[in-house]
């Protein structure tokens, strides 16, 4: 089976999921108790005018028609008009989306770098106190609430040590790339926390397994330096599963990112979504949910392709 065909097949499988998410996102706007139009305009307009407003939002059509109107809105008209802010949804979400992407990327980097490092340390020093100490830290870390961990990071590194900024994405007077990086460090660490520890466990187990294999023992007995073995053989063999785990962790990471945005006042999609929930701004909620879900599915697909290319043996399957 060719690579193209397989990717095409996965793309095809994505569509029903996306359709399902879009129906659910649409239903949020319909099923919610209370009429948003009435809530927003009732004190200013007559019943007839309210009906007119409903018609402009397409709220007088049968349900299935509303769904397609909404889909067209999402596809063509920027996701409909925010009820609270009165501008197209994707005009609101667009810049925030980029910010969230930056933070997610930071989270992935933190996850991969620290996850690999922690896992490798524990795995290479297996059966020593280093392994046990690292694994204790991993266990404690896995039980931390991301929100609280972010807060503790702020307390330690921003308030006590004053090394890094407290929150937000940029200093008040702007500050370019270095400034952004400084703002990115703590949120990335917090967002990637759970994922990096999951990855660390897999890397550790992977290393322990690889070191126990016959080929490793043979190479080691031939006097090939350990670091070379770890780099060339162990690393190469656990890489596909590490990528796979990282890909599976994207969902967790997105959840973490949204928690973290709330702690660090990061101007991202999570902050926007949580605000929209409080303001009952359904178009924004619907657009945001659809956007995040679509991104998640795309990343999922990309991970699959990467895992494929890293492990040719899977291609036969």
């Amino acid at each position, binding site marked *: 089976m060719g690579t193209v065909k397989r990717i095409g097949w996965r793309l095809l499988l994505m569509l029903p*999921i996306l359709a399902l998410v879009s129906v659910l996102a649409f239903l*949020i706007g319909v*099923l919610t108790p209370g009429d948003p139009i009435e809530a927003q305009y009732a004190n200013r307009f007559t019943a007839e005018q309210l009906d007119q407003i409903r018609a402009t939002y397409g709220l007088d059509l049968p349900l299935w028609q509303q769904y397609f109107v909404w889909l067209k809105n999402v596809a063509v008209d920027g996701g409909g008009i925010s009820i609270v802010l009165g501008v197209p949804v994707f005009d609101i979400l667009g810049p925030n989306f980029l910010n969230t992407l930056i933070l997610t990327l930071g989270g992935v980097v933190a996850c991969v770098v620290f996850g690999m490092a922690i896992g490798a340390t524990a795995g290479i020093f*297996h*059966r*020593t*106190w280093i392994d*046990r100490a690292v*694994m204790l830290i*991993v*266990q*404690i870390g*896995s*039980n*931390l*609430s991301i*929100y*609280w961990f972010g*807060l503790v990071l702020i*307390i330690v590194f921003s*308030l006590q040590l004053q090394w890094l900024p*407290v929150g937000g994405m940029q200093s008040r007077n702007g500050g370019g790339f270095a400034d952004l990086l400084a703002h990115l460090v703590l949120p990335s660490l917090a967002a990637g926390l*759970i994922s990096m*520890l*999951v990855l660390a*466990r*897999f890397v*550790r*187990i*992977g290393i*322990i397994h690889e070191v*126990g294999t016959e080929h490793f023992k043979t190479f080691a007995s031939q006097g090939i330096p350990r670091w070379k073995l770890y780099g060339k053989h162990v690393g190469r063999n*656990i890489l596909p*599963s590490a990528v*796979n785990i990282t890909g*599976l962790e*994207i*969902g*967790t990471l*997105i*959840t*973490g990112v*949204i928690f973290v945005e*709330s702690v660090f006042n990061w101007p991202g999609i*999570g902050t926007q979504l*949580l605000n929209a*929930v*409080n303001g*009952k701004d359904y178009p924004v*909620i619907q657009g945001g*949910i659809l956007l*995040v*879900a679509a991104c*998640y599915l795309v990343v*999922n697909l990309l991970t699959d392709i990467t*895992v494929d290319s890293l*492990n040719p*043996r*899977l291609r036969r*399957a």
Partner: protein
Amino acid sequence: MADLATAPKNASRLVPLPGRRPRTVTGRNLQVGVALVIIAVVVLSSVFAPLVAPHDPLLSDPASKYLPPGSPGHLLGTDDQGRDLLSRIIWGGRTSLLIAVVAVAFSTVVGSALAIVAGFAGPLLSGLIMRTVDVMFAFPVIIVAVALAALFAPGPSVVILAIAFAVIPYVSRVVFAEVKQQKGQDYVEAAVSLGAGHASILFREVLPNVTTQIIVYATSLVGGMVVFASSLSAVGIGVQPPTADWGQMIATGARVVISGNLYVALFPGLMVLIVALAFNWLGDGLRDVLDVRQRSGAPSRRKTGDAGADGRDTPVGAAGPDGHADASGPAEEVPR
């Protein structure tokens, strides 16, 4: 001692390698004991909160704002409204634990039911259920939580349903693997040959043999869900103020951290951590004591021809050589 000193060099191989010492029964018992004590204290103080708590958790007192820990009458100090932190933590335990336990119990029942149906149904229904579970698996739960919060108002029910969405895939994978494994056993075959029907095999043969695993697994999930629930409440889509809840308290504390009042957020967060660790230890301990071998519910993206030759799968399911898989099952992969 003298024996050791005079022993031949290679005899040292008989002495357990450092770090290889098997975790002894007493060590495990100690761990389970500590966990049980912590859980007992927290559960009892939550149940008897009205009797135990020194103050009303909702009673604000502008005269005694931000009292530091150790103040007379306020062991852990007070928050931004002068409410007693210790009382709020005790009452908060009620909300936080109740949400986590109810959510996990609910998801366990639903997840197990799905898995058992999938285990006994034909390939079509079975495939449909397990594919659906695959899609739910690793889907960003926060999206579901936000959608639920938009549908219903933010509150405990949102947290419970969001947790259910996150946990059901894990439970059903574990139970599905378990049911499949049990179905292949001789005793089931014997029952079939005796003419037992589906229902009889299910309820009289398989179910009694998987309940222990299910309960142990569910126990290990509670801690993580206390943590996750606290995060949801902290970002405002869970328990709403002024109700005392650990997540809610962390959020309240987060707002006053900048003014130097750190402990308002620190104490509830520590409680979440301690309780989560205790449930983890209890789960681990139960698994060892009851000798439950959990089949990994860890996901594999695609069925492969031979899992053995698949470099990806080997580390995933492999236990450490010391028999203790520290990637101890999917329990720890549930998002927080």
